[in-house]
C-alpha cells in the first residue's frame, strides 16, 4: 500500500523527516528575497529541499512554502518512494500507477450546492464574504522582476462543463497562472485548447459567467496531476487516486459546488466574468521568457474559505531548471509514453522533461529501418505533441533516455546528418515558444540516433564495446561500499 498524504502540512512533515525541508525563522522581505530564494535552490542542486519561510515582513503569522516538489528526492517522496529512487525508476512507478486509472475519488461531506451544512474539510474553518482582501490572507509577492504583479501559480483550479454540470469526469482540475489584480479580483490565463478554455467558451456562448474554485496549498499529487495532459473526460481526481495509490479525498466547495482537495489551505470561490477581457501579464514563464501583455478573462472573488494561519504554497518558474520543471517532468513524459506504447509496444521509455516536452527523448527497439523516425513523428501527433515535441531525439532501447551522457553518446556516434534528420515544416506549437513564427507555428525535427538496421545498411556498428564480465556485480559492490 502506497502512502497518500492528507494535505500540504503532512507532506512538509515527511520532507522534514527526510532532511528535505529548510525552515527560515528570521524575518524575510517579500521582494526580491522570496523569488530569489526559490530561484537559488534550483541553481544550487537538483536534490534540494523545500523552503518554508515563517516570518514574512508585514505579517503576523504568515508562512510561505516554496520549492515543495523542486528536486528529485522531493518528487520521489511525493510518490511515496525512497528519496534516493532514480529518475528512471520514478518514471516507471508513475507509469505503472497511471495504468490503474480511474480510481474513484473519496467524497467527504454530502451537502448539496448552496446549503451551509458543515463538513470536516480543514479549510471550512473560516469563511469570508465581505471585505475580502487576498493580500491580507496570503503573503502574495512578485516572483520575477518584471511580472505585472503578484501571482497565484500553483493552485488547483476547478471548473465544470456548463452544458453538463453534474458530470464528474469533465469537471476539470488545472493549473493556470492567476494575476491578483485587486483585493478580490483576479486575472486568469485559460488557454483555449485546455479544458478550462472549453468550459469558458461554453459559458460565454450561453451568456453566463463561469463558476470557479481555486484551491491553494495542497498535498503535491493533485497539483502534479492538474498539470498533466489528460483527455477532456478524464478526471484529474481519479488520476491522482491512481498515482497516489489510494482514492483522492475531495470536499465540495459550498458556493460553487466544485469538488476541491479536502486538505487545501485556502479555497477561493468566484466566477470568471463572461465576455470581459482585460490586460494581464507579462509573467515570467517556464520557457525562460516573459509572456503576456494580452487581454484575458477576469475573476470576481465572492467567497474565501481558509484554515487558521494558512500556508501560502507558491511555485518558482523561469529559466529551467526550477520547481516547475520537476512538477511537469514525469506528468508529461508518462502520458506520451502511454500513448506511444499503445501503437508501438517497442517503445521502452520517454523522457519529455525539457521545457514541458518542447524537446523529448524516446528510447525504442526499432523493428526495421525507418521505424524509429516514424515513432518520433508519432510523438508530434499526440495531443500534447501538437503544442510541444519540437525536437524529438530517438535512441536505441539499450540507451537510457534519462541519462543525458548516453543520449549525447548516441547522437555523437549514431546520428548521420544526411540520413537521420527529419524536418517537418510549419507545424503547430504553443505560442509561448519564443522561436515560433508566427507565434504558434514552427518547424519540428526528429533526430534519429538509433543504430541503422535492415534494410538500412550503413555505418560501422558491428563491433560495439560491451562491459567487462562482472561489471554489474562490481557496481553493486561499489554502491554498497559508498553508502
Amino acid at each position, binding site marked *: 500500500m502506497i502512502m497518500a498524504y492528507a494535505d500540504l502540512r503532512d507532506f512538509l512533515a515527511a520532507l522534514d523527516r527526510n532532511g528535505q525541508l529548510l525552515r527560515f525563522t528570521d524575518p524575510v522581505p517579500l521582494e*526580491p528575497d522570496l523569488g530569489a530564494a526559490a530561484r537559488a535552490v534550483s541553481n544550487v542542486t537538483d536534490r534540494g529541499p523545500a523552503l518554508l519561510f515563517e516570518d514574512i515582513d*508585514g505579517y503576523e503569522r504568515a508562512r510561505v512554502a516554496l520549492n515543495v516538489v523542486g528536486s528529485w528526492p522531493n518528487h520521489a517522496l511525493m510518490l511515496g518512494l525512497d528519496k534516493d529512487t532514480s529518475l528512471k525508476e520514478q518514471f516507471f512507478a508513475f507509469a505503472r500507477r497511471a495504468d490503474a486509472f480511474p480510481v474513484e475519488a473519496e467524497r467527504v461531506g454530502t451537502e448539496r450546492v448552496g446549503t451551509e451544512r458543515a463538513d470536516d474539510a480543514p479549510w471550512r474553518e473560516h469563511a469570508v464574504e465581505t471585505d475580502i482582501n487576498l493580500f491580507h490572507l496570503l503573503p502574495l509577492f512578485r516572483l520575477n522582476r518584471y511580472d*505585472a*504583479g503578484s501571482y497565484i501559480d500553483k493552485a488547483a483550479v476547478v471548473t465544470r462543463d456548463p452544458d453538463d454540470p453534474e458530470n464528474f469526469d469533465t469537471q476539470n482540475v488545472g493549473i493556470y497562472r492567476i494575476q491578483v489584480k485587486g483585493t478580490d479580483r483576479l486575472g486568469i490565463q485559460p*488557454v483555449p485548447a485546455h479544458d478550462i478554455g472549453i468550459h469558458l467558451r461554453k459559458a*460565454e456562448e*450561453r451568456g453566463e459567467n463561469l463558476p470557479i474554485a481555486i484551491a491553494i496549498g495542497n498535498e503535491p499529487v493533485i497539483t502534479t496531476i492538474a498539470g498533466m495532459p489528460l483527455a477532456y473526460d478524464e478526471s484529474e481526481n481519479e488520476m491522482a487516486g491512481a498515482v497516489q495509490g489510494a482514492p483522492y479525498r475531495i470536499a465540495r466547495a459550498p458556493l460553487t459546488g466544485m469538488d476541491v482537495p479536502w486538505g487545501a489551505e485556502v479555497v477561493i470561490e468566484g466566477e470568471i466574468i463572461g465576455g470581459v477581457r*482585460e*490586460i494581464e501579464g507579462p509573467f515570467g514563464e517556464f520557457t525562460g521568457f516573459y509572456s503576456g501583455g494580452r*487581454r484575458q478573462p477576469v475573476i470576481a472573488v465572492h467567497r474565501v474559505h481558509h484554515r487558521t494561519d494558512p500556508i501560502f504554497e507558491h511555485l518558482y518558474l523561469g529559466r529551467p531548471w526550477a520547481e516547475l520543471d520537476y512538477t511537469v517532468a514525469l506528468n508529461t513524459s508518462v502520458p506520451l509514453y502511454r500513448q506511444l506504447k499503445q501503437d508501438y509496444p517497442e517503445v521502452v521509455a520517454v523522457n519529455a522533461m525539457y521545457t514541458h516536452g518542447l524537446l523529448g527523448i524516446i528510447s525504442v527497439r526499432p523493428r526495421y529501418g525507418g521505424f524509429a523516425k516514424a515513432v518520433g513523428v508519432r510523438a508530434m501527433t499526440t495531443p500534447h505533441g501538437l503544442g510541444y515535441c519540437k525536437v524529438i531525439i530517438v535512441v536505441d532501447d539499450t540507451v537510457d533516455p534519462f541519462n543525458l551522457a548516453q543520449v549525447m553518446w548516441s547522437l555523437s556516434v549514431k546520428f548521420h546528418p544526411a540520413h537521420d534528420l527529419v524536418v517537418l515544416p510549419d507545424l503547430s506549437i504553443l505560442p509561448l515558444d519564443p522561436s515560433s513564427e508566427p507565434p504558434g507555428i514552427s518547424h519540428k525535427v526528429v533526430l534519429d540516433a538509433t543504430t541503422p538496421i535492415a534494410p538500412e545498411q550503413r555505418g560501422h556498428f558491428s563491433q560495439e564495446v560491451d562491459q567487462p564480465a562482472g561489471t554489474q556485480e562490481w557496481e553493486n559492490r561499489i554502491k554498497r561500499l559508498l553508502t
Partner: protein
Amino acid sequence: MTAPKIPDTCPRCDSHDVSLLTASPVPGRWFMYACGVCFYSWRSTEPGYATDPAAYPAAFKIDPTDIPKMLVVPSIPTRRGGTP
C-alpha cells in the same frame, strides 16, 4: 497609522490612475499600489526597478494606447441563438 502618499505615476505605463491596493497587515511596514490602466501593481519596499517610472526598462513599458489593440485570449464567442 498615517495615510500613505500615493505615487502619482505608474512605473510601467506612466499613467496617473494609481490607487492604494492594500497596506501591510502589520501597520506601517509597506503599502501596495495598483495602476487602473495597465493593472501593474507594486510594493513600496520594492527596489527601484519595479517602482520608479524612470528606471522601468523600455522593453517592459506599456503604452496605454496599445492596450485596446492587444490580442484577446481566448476570443469571445458568439452567444447561442445569435445574440452577439
